[in-house]
């Protein structure tokens, strides 16, 4: 299955269709109480349907070895990935819960260390006008910038995940196709895994009382779709694919470039491969 090499259009259409359906539902709900009841009944049905369709029939997790790649030189910091992730995965719309985020590194002339910020920075929130909207404020327009770049971040789905090691119940686990998932019905919410992750990729889902993090959109990738963040990236800075497939975009990316991973010294063996990093990126 060369799902990552399929033309992106059909998958993108499905994604847009889902969003438009959501919008239609919202409109209907706003219309009338009766319609609201119908919509909720309908969403209940579709909810049941999604439970039935997951795990995806005929999906064999022994046949895949998923990996993620980031070309940081391409990222323009538009933050569509952050917004798509929040909506796709129902992540709290605030400045403290993210399954993926983007960091900005700016070197100003004459300064040794870069200025680093993300969309959570108070100045960026002020510029966007809301915690629910994600922007990078144009705060360096009057400075003499030597070098600047963006770095998308997400869970590294490590080969030796420290978060899985420390989970006292086994609620978080590594799937055979290389994804680190959390069983929200078994997690006790101790947050030991949040402490153990060196990348800050995990957070506490306060509404559910459990830990949460990026799943590489497991519900999508097992259906042949791309993760939402990869789907919406307008510059293909984010890539996703199967390492078992030599021709997948990720396999080619790793083969054609001298790739890096974040914090290799932790021994976690991350599976998000980067190019275009800088010594100050941690």
């Amino acid at each position, binding site marked *: 299955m060369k799902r990552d090499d399929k033309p992106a259009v059909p998958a993108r259409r499905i994604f847009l269709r889902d969003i438009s359906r959501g919008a239609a539902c919202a409109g209907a709900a706003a219309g009338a109480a009766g319609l609201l009841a119908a919509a909720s009944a309908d969403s209940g049905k579709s909810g049941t349907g999604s439970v039935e369709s997951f795990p995806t029939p005929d999906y064999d997790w022994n046949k895949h070895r998923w990996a993620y790649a980031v070309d940081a030189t391409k990222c323009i910091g538009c933050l569509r990935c952050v917004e798509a992730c929040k909506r796709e995965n129902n992540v709290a719309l605030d400045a403290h819960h993210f399954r993926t985020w983007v960091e900005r590194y700016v070197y100003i002339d004459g300064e040794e260390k870069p200025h680093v910020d*993300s969309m959570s920075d108070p100045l960026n929130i002020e510029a966007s006008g809301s915690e629910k909207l994600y922007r990078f404020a144009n705060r360096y327009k009057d400075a003499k910038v030597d070098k600047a770049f963006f770095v998308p971040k997400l869970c590294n789905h490590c080969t030796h995940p420290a978060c899985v090691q420390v989970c006292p119940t086994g609620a978080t686990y590594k799937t055979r196709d290389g994804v680190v998932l959390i069983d929200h019905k078994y997690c*006790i919410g101790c*947050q*030991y895994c949040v402490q153990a*992750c060196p990348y*800050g990729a995990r957070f506490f889902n*306060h509404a559910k009382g459990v830990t949460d993090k990026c799943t590489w959109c497991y519900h999508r990738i097992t259906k042949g779709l791309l993760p939402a963040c990869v789907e919406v990236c307008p510059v293909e800075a984010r890539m996703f694919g199967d390492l078992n497939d030599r021709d997948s975009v990720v396999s080619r990316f790793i083969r054609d470039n001298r790739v890096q991973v974040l914090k290799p010294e932790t021994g976690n063996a991350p599976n998000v491969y980067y190019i275009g990093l800088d010594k100050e990126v941690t």
Partner: protein
Amino acid sequence: MDALHHASAFSGYVYPNETIIPWSVLIVVYPYLTGLVAGSFTVSSLYHVFGMQQFKPVARFSMLLALCLMVCVPMPLLLHLGHPERAFNAMITPHLTSAFAIFGYAASFYTILLMLENWFVYRPQIVQIATEGKGPLKWVCRVASLGSNDLSEYAMNYDHKWIYALAVIGIPAALGLHGYVGFVFGSLKSREWWSSDLMPPVFLLSAVISGTALVILLYVLTSLARKVAIEEPCVKGLAYTLWGFLMFALILEGLEIASMLYRSREGIDVIVTFLTGPLVVPFFILQIGLGSVVPLLTLTYVIVRGSKGRALTAAVFVSAALVLCAVLLMRWNVVIGGQEIAKTGKGLVSYEPEVFGREGLIAAGSVLFLPLILMFVATRIVSPWAEETRAAVLRGRTPA
């Protein structure tokens, strides 16, 4: 969502998810309580195992204190969990690679051990109330006696063997339980502030001094309240224990900071900023200065000078109070401090505890004082004081 979480202010660059401190003040209370358990058990064992007679006045008291503290140890953890009703998942399906998976077993084992030990120690009193007492307490004690009313010399010798054996097992169990808490923090490679091989011994020694300090405080206060003479050899023995272990604790903590600074691994800049900024008052001035160096010098002075009587008691009492505060601060500086240093190595988060709520200061304070309330209730039923005869206890408890 706003009411559900409490975001912290930060400086520099921190990962967006780090703005909510995962482990709150409750997780400060948890190692503090386990440390007090280990420390008070150690004091009790100095008499029960090592036969040091000067500790006899507080031996039974500190054994009961250890139990009252131990039953409260899981409380801060349960209050902290997102799903406390699932807490037993860790015991039903322990994920054995986790440093925390065996907590349920270790804590249960130790609680049972303490219950057994206390049962044997207080069995004569329980039996006496069960047979001679009146009212509901008689029935409580009848159940607590487990139907074993034999107080013959043979039975007492048998009990004594059990007390000795359980105390011998209890020492490594208590030290292991608390050293393991140090391991929970020290084994995490994601935080430079925690990641240290010295963390378990630092936790252990601070546990011994905090438990000893609590026994000193309660012994002096209860003696004053009961209007009985404070036994000087006992105070002196406790002072020596506090003095000796305090030296070790202080040196080990110093070594830990020194090796972290000397290694100067990635992110050391922000650790130095932390040490020389937000940590100056809580760590250097209060924990190390006022809470460790001042008691150490005070104890050195009274011990070397050979002070006696009220001067000795007052000096030891004040030193113990300072040590008790310093160890609580040490837990805070380790648990909260570690989370205030961002994993980016480029920023600091500043934790502001909530006052109300499940993880607030009031909840944490209540858990912290609950063992003392339990102790008060327990000592209404049985007397932990060696000088009080069983008959006197019984007279005091039964209606006229």
